[in-house]
C-alpha cells in the first residue's frame, strides 16, 4: 500500500514537470508531492553511510550547524573530506556523501538550507543526530 502511494506520488510529481522516471521510484522529485519541508522529507528515511568515527562526527557537526546557524553562515562553512583532510567539503557535499535519501528524493540545496528553521526539519535533524550518536556509541562499545 505504502509502496503504491509512493509510486503514485512520484508519478504525479514527474508528470507535473513533463518528465517521467526511467524507474518511477528512483527518479521522481517526490519532495513536491510530500507534506512538510523538503529538508524533513530528505532526512526522513535517509540511511546514514559512514566508514569512520571521524566521518560520523563530521556529518553530525554539519547537521548541528544546519539546525542552529543562519543560512548566510551555512554557505560559508567547510568540513573535512572523507579522509579527514580539513576544509574539503561544503555542507551540502557532506550531506550527499553520508546520507542516502529514500526513494530518490532530490536534494534542492537552496531549499534545504532555507528549510532548516522549519519545525519538522528541526525535528528530523535532531532525530538524525540522535541516530549518529547511537552509532558513535556502538562504535566505541567494548568488543564482545
Amino acid at each position: 500500500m505504502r509502496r503504491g502511494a509512493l509510486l503514485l506520488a512520484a508519478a504525479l510529481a514527474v508528470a507535473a514537470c513533463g518528465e517521467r522516471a526511467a524507474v518511477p521510484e528512483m527518479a521522481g522529485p517526490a519532495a513536491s508531492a510530500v507534506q512538510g519541508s523538503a529538508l524533513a522529507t530528505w532526512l526522513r528515511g535517509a540511511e546514514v553511510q559512514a566508514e569512520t568515527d571521524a566521518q560520523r562526527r563530521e556529518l553530525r557537526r554539519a547537521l548541528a550547524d544546519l539546525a542552529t546557524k543562519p543560512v548566510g553562515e551555512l554557505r560559508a562553512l567547510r568540513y573535512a573530506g572523507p579522509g579527514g583532510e580539513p576544509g574539503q567539503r561544503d555542507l551540502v557535499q557532506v550531506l550527499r556523501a553520508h546520507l542516502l535519501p529514500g526513494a530518490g528524493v532530490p536534494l534542492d540545496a537552496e531549499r534545504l538550507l532555507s528549510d532548516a528553521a522549519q519545525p519538522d526539519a528541526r525535528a528530523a535533524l535532531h532525530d538524525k543526530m540522535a541516530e549518529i550518536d547511537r552509532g558513535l556509541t556502538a562504535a566505541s562499545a567494548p568488543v564482545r
Partner: protein
Amino acid sequence: MAKCSIHPALASIAKVNGVECCEKCKAGIAAAVKKVDKHVEPKGCFVWFEGKNGWQPIPGTGCAHWVAHERNIKRGSAGEQCMLGFPLRVKTLIGGKSEVELADVKVNDVYVTPSRDHTGLVVKVTPDPKNPDTPKVVIRHDSSAQGKVSENEFASYFKGKGDFFR
C-alpha cells in the same frame, strides 16, 4: 521507435545501463558519472535522475553498492537501487541474511559495522590455533576514507567491532 524513459516526448537514441535515453539524458548520465566520487566502484551505474537537478551521482558512500555488485545481490525496490538494479542501502543488502559468529566467518561473508552504516566483504580468513574463536579476518570494502577499494584487517582497522552475515 523507442522513447526516452525520462522525457517520453523525445526519441531514445541509446540504451544506457538498460535505460532508454534521449540525447539530453545520455549526456546527463555521462556528466553525472564523471562527478561520482573517486572511491566509488563501479561508477557507470551509480547515478540517478533527480528531477530538476537532472542526472546526479547517487548520494551515500557506495559501500553497499560495491558489495552488491561483487556478490551479484539484487534486492530492494527501484528507488533504492543503482541503474543496474543493485541495492544502495546497507540494511537492504543484508536483509534476509543470517548473522554468523566470528568463529564461523568464511570468505564472501558480508561485514557490517555495529551501526549498520558501512559494509564490506570478507576476502581472507586465517585461523588462529591459539584462539579458535577469533580468526584473523581481512575485509575488502569500498572505502571513502581511503579513496579506493581497500583491504583492511577486521581486528585493527575495524577495531574488531561489527557483525558478519551470510
